């Protein structure tokens, strides 16, 4: 066993590292104050264009679509190297990670030719419009409808939890096109112009106080049939392509989120209930050990996947444990650490930056346990797809959507 790159991987890494040293120098440290949205978008676009010019975008995509035609290891290696910097990230992760692969897999050649290059260079930002108020875990319960009108479709309805809708030019949207069919059968996927008449984007204020997501309202929004992705009625199948990419994207502990090391540092400076530093208390040490086991266990599990990819094999099913462990561990660790800090962990004025991070992590982890598959849905997936247990009973599964209770 070894943790070394193959010679080819090492070459790729060295080249990427040298390029980043030269081109990402301004992002060596995190910004002193977080960027405002406009600056974040401007910096993201400039950085994406730079990466495009150097061949560090669409690393695994086919060359025909402007990609580099390389393997997943190269993409991961580049990601690791870029991760050493604080370059603006996130604006394109959904568009390029999920939407555009769906566009070039299921769209017509003309549509792909029009949209893929501009997305890759970063000129156009994309978002994914799937979740609805009544379609979260039960994603196929989509009610936003699209009705055929000549060569167009007219879309009416509401989407929710759409990241970067306010900064996006285009989106992919799943709509119900035939409510007389069972719920997985009557769906169709379309490209939509986020600036089209009848589109309305409203920010959602989260319980954490931030606004990272949106509600999107469709009022008689017109979309040409040429923007359909996949056949009419195949929307669920197409959406699964997109979600497959999402599961790869939403995985490990968010970069820079507090972990066991934060708890260790904190516990040195706090007194235990029975006196002495908290770091010497048995229950605190148990918690540190558990945080280490969970956080590092997921990192090591991801290394197992990299090892498989590096040998040209498919990663094993154990990758499915990642998010369900990470999100809950973040929450438990943050709550334990804030408790340990007593009143200081509770006050949000003039708070120590480490504690402030823990407070942020405590609030954000509540959302992370839901985003991209709830803890409960992910356990269903492990039980059903990995262990082979039967699926939940779904009384509405085979009924026409408009006849189900």
């Amino acid at each position: 066993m070894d943790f070394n790159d193959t010679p080819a991987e090492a070459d790729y890494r060295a080249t990427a590292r040298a390029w980043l040293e030269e081109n990402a120098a301004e992002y060596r440290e995190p910004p002193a104050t977080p960027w405002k949205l406009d600056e974040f978008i401007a910096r993201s676009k400039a950085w994406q264009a730079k990466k495009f010019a150097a061949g560090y975008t669409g690393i695994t995509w086919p060359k025909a679509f402007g990609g580099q035609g390389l393997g997943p290891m190269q993409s991961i290696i580049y990601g690791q190297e870029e991760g050493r910097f604080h370059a603006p990230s996130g604006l394109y992760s959904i568009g390029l990670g999920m939407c555009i692969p769906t566009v070039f897999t299921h769209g017509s050649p003309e549509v792909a030719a029009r949209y893929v290059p501009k997305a890759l260079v970063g000129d156009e930002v994309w978002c994914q419009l799937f979740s609805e108020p009544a379609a979260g875990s039960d994603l196929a319960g989509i009610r936003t409808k699209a009705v055929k009108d000549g060569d167009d479709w007219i879309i009416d309805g509401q989407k929710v939890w759409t990241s970067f809708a306010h900064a996006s030019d285009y989106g992919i949207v799943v709509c119900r096109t035939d409510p007389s069919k069972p719920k997985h059968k009557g769906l169709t996927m379309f490209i939509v112009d986020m600036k089209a008449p009848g589109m309305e984007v409203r920010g959602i204020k989260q319980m954490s106080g931030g606004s990272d997501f949106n509600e999107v309202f469709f009022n008689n929004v017109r979309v040409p049939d040429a923007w359909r992705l996949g056949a009419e009625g195949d929307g669920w199948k197409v959406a699964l392509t997109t979600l497959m990419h999402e599961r790869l994207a939403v995985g490990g502990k968010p970069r820079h989120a507090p972990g066991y090391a934060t708890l260790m540092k904190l516990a040195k400076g706090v007194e235990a209930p029975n006196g002495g530093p908290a770091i010497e208390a048995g229950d605190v040490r148990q918690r540190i050990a558990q945080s280490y086991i969970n956080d590092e266990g997921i990192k090591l599990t991801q290394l197992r996947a990299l090892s498989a990819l590096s040998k040209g094999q498919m990663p094993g099913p154990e990758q499915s444990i990642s998010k369900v462990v990470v999100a809950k561990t973040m929450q438990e660790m943050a709550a334990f650490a804030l408790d340990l800090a007593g009143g200081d962990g509770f006050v949000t004025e003039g708070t120590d930056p480490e504690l402030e991070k823990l407070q942020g992590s405590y609030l954000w982890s509540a959302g992370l346990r839901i985003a991209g598959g709830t803890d409960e849905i992910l356990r269903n997936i492990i039980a059903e797809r990995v262990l082979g247990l039967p699926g939940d009973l779904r009384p509405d599964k085979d009924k026409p959507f408009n006849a189900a209770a």
Partner: protein
Amino acid sequence: MNFDFSDDAKALGDQAKKLFADKAGTAAARKAMAKDAPAFDAALWAEIAALGWTAARVPEAHGGLGMTAEESCMLADAAGGALACVPLVSSLLATEALLIAGNEAQQAKYFPGIADGSCIAVAAWSEPGAANPQALAVKAEGGKLHGVKAPVADLPGAHLAIVAAAGADGPSLWLVDLSAAKVDTLETLDLVRRHGRLTLDGVAAEPLGSAADYQLWLDRAAVILAYEAIGTATAAMTMTVEYAKTRVAFGQTIGRYQGVKHKCADMYIKIELARAHALHGIAMIGSNGAELRQAAAAARVASLEAASFCGEEAVQLHGGIGFTWESDCQFYYRRARTLSAALGGRGWWADRLVRALELRNRAAA
């Protein structure tokens, strides 16, 4: 990057699982529960010795196959999964101690017998009143050991014991020829694996390496035992998942209920976390890596957690039938305690893990 077992180790693991599926498993374990049953399955022991499993990790110069710790771990995984009634894991732990700490003469004296299966070797650290492998009262004086070691796994029928005893620099290992020692069987919660009490009333012993060797042995033993625990936990999970696919309640198989399937998913999650750390441990054994201490401790804690959880929830998800004497659930439930007793429990190893992280942080500062 290559973060996986070698093909050789996997092949040996597959061979072991196949043989144990035929000749070990819960039916054999039930036979071994009988009061008059032999200490272990001698025919199976002879067969695995003939297949070279006891020789796998022994150097070629001493009649072995010179394989790596990966092979030992694959064997421990298979033995754990099948509850195999042979002193294989004990032999692997003793082999590791001789490899780490044995001088040329000691290796030449003991390895050939261990390799061909004629010398059954066990590891004895536990003693009455000792809660962890660091706090030992048994002492060596002038090459003789005084005190009691108990419970010692696979002691009845064994020939050689690797005994941990207190010394000036901390605990270290000693070699004890059991033909001269007093061995009694000792009843434990585990009704399948025999344990014993080793009374050392001035028994002659040879020192085996240094106090530092003992610490290294603890780490390597923790990794091997983690694989045994992972094997056992996986067997408990598999049995439970199969039951949940067939048992019907309220008109449907119980595996459809989230209350049931989510517990099965949690079994899987705990096992895979343990496996990740155990694999890290093996990688560190193979490379003499500095992270062995933390990897071994994490593997130990996570694997005991997996074995306990799977054993406990296996009974729970089987319902009433799982609590009967006739059900196989009790094997896994009881074995979780055996695994914990084998090298100190979760609390001590969690502390050792944090201590390793503190040392690393101090070194980096």
